[in-house]
């Protein structure tokens, strides 16, 4: 795969109930990204957005974000999945050779709609909905329970992941304030309100308000714009079967195959040694463990034993991850931005030392049905 450079990015501060509207929030992110690269509106040749009709409360949700989203009289299109999938769309447009600068933005305001209730409509209307009440949280409960049972892992080990991510989030000024807690303990996580046993409130990535934007450019163009772009050297994506009962919930087959595709593209043979840090979109604490096993960062069943602190063996989610704030449609994009910050050495307060290669992932669907993985490399 040809290298594609990340030449600019911007993320707004995440709020659980923001005081300003979606329109302004999108403008702030898009304008911020363009300014961070020192460019102008006319430099953008293609704009990709990531929003959702339901989340926006508007059919054809990209029709009203044209002006603020940089889509005015531009080659514009929308992805209705995760922000990381929108980056894939932008990446493909760059790789087609027809575009010089691709703007990708994504995000929504979860304070405007009931996120978890909406996801009840994700199950099959014929076979599943009449039988039982299952939304993404209950499905996560299925997966967590299956994982705990298979490897004999204790619930405290999963709670430790939530503790680590919330502590990391406290160092990240842009993370959700509710998720920032430097003094949180495993007991706090386990004692928080039960959502669907064994999933407790603090193990869930709280949906919030936020938008992020990213600029992509082909190799030559990227070097003209900036001296130190972050390169996307590999990407992989995969989709798993829809029905939960058809899957082995204790692992993520789609993440494994997506990882293989991305590592092949980037020429990575041993991810354990070569990868310096990972930014995962873990909608629930246990997903981080399942992802790191699927990508071969740790052996199967050993995920909870990995030292994934900022100064650990392989730092995972130094920014706090999705648990540090999960704006639907924007989270995967923020993961890529956070990984890029680490590679540029701009992660003030939560910087991983000597970070050269990073993984960023996005997902969508129940129990991470669809996964997308990026390999990012810094330096020239």
């Amino acid at each position, binding site marked *: 795969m040809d290298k594609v450079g990340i030449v600019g990015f911007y993320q707004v501060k995440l709020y659980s109930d923001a*005081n300003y509207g979606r329109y302004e929030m999108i403008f702030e992110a898009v304008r911020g990204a363009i300014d961070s690269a020192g460019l102008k509106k006319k430099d953008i040749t293609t704009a990709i957005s990531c929003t959702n009709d339901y989340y926006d409360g508007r059919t054809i949700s990209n029709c009203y974000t044209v002006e603020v989203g940089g889509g005015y009289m531009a080659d514009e299109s929308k992805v209705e999945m995760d922000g990381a999938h929108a980056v894939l769309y932008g990446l493909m447009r760059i790789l087609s050779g027809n575009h010089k600068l691709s703007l990708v933005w994504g995000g929504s305001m979860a304070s405007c709609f009931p996120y978890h209730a909406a996801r009840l409509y994700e199950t099959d209307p014929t076979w599943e909905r009449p039988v039982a*009440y299952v939304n993404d949280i209950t499905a996560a409960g299925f997966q967590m329970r*299956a994982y705990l049972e298979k490897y004999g892992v204790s619930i405290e080990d999963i709670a430790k992941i939530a503790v680590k991510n919330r502590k990391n989030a406290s160092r990240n000024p842009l993370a959700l304030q509710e998720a920032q807690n430097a003094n949180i303990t495993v007991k706090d996580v386990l004692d928080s309100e039960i959502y*669907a046993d064994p999933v407790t409130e603090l193990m869930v990535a709280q949906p919030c308000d936020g938008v992020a934007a990213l600029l992509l450019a082909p190799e030559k163009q990227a070097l003209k714009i900036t001296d130190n772009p972050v390169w996307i050297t590999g990407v992989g994506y995969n989709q798993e079967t829809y029905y939960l009962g*058809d899957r082995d919930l204790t692992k993520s087959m789609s993440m494994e195959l997506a990882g293989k595709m991305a590592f092949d593209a980037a020429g990575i043979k041993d991810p354990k040694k070569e990868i310096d840090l990972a930014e995962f979109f873990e909608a629930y604490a246990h997903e981080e463990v399942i992802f790191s096993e699927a990508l071969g960062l740790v052996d199967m069943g050993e995920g909870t034993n990995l030292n994934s602190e900022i100064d650990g063996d392989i730092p995972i989610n130094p920014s706090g991850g999705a648990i540090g704030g999960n704006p639907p449609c924007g989270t995967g994009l923020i993961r890529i931005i956070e990984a890029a910050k680490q590679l540029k050495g701009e992660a003030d307060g939560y910087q991983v030392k000597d970070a050269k290669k990073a993984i960023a992932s996005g997902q969508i669907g129940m129990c991470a049905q669809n996964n997308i993985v990026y390999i990012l490399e810094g330096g020239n």
Partner: protein
Amino acid sequence: MSKLTQRKSMDYIKKQYRETRKMPGSWYLSNYKYKYNITHLQPFLKKLKEKKLVGLKCSGCNTVYYPPRFVCGKCLVKPNRWVDLRETGKVSTFAIAYLKDPETGEIQEKPMVLVHHDGADTASIAQLNPEVDFKDTYIGMPIKAHWAENPVGGLMDVEYYDLMKDDAKDLDLPED
């Protein structure tokens, strides 16, 4: 960073906003009609009426699907061989949901389970007998379909799953 973005989102000025006029209207998400052709499921529905369960076997990969599927995603063919299943099975995984009654406000603890039928290769979402204590649920618990009194040949003929006596030896605690 240029002057334009010097205002950081963190210290964004709290703006005055007020609610504008509301337009009546609703998004009929829950009233949506989902169409599903049941022609290829007739044998399954007929058997349900006789209190019997069948799964669909894919001729390409021999996977037995229960509930029967229209298409096998792995082979992209229509599974076409009906195979008899037992009405017993085991809990493949579960989560406990806390449902609030909208009228009384009472919170009900309900185990949601994925049931793996004996003879099938896939599991399906189901509920346990409401009399089962949610604390007693475990992975691998043997269960049996509880039939409606008068099956009509529909999916809800299996109302829920009853507990079976677990005679597995490894459940007995060692004596010392």
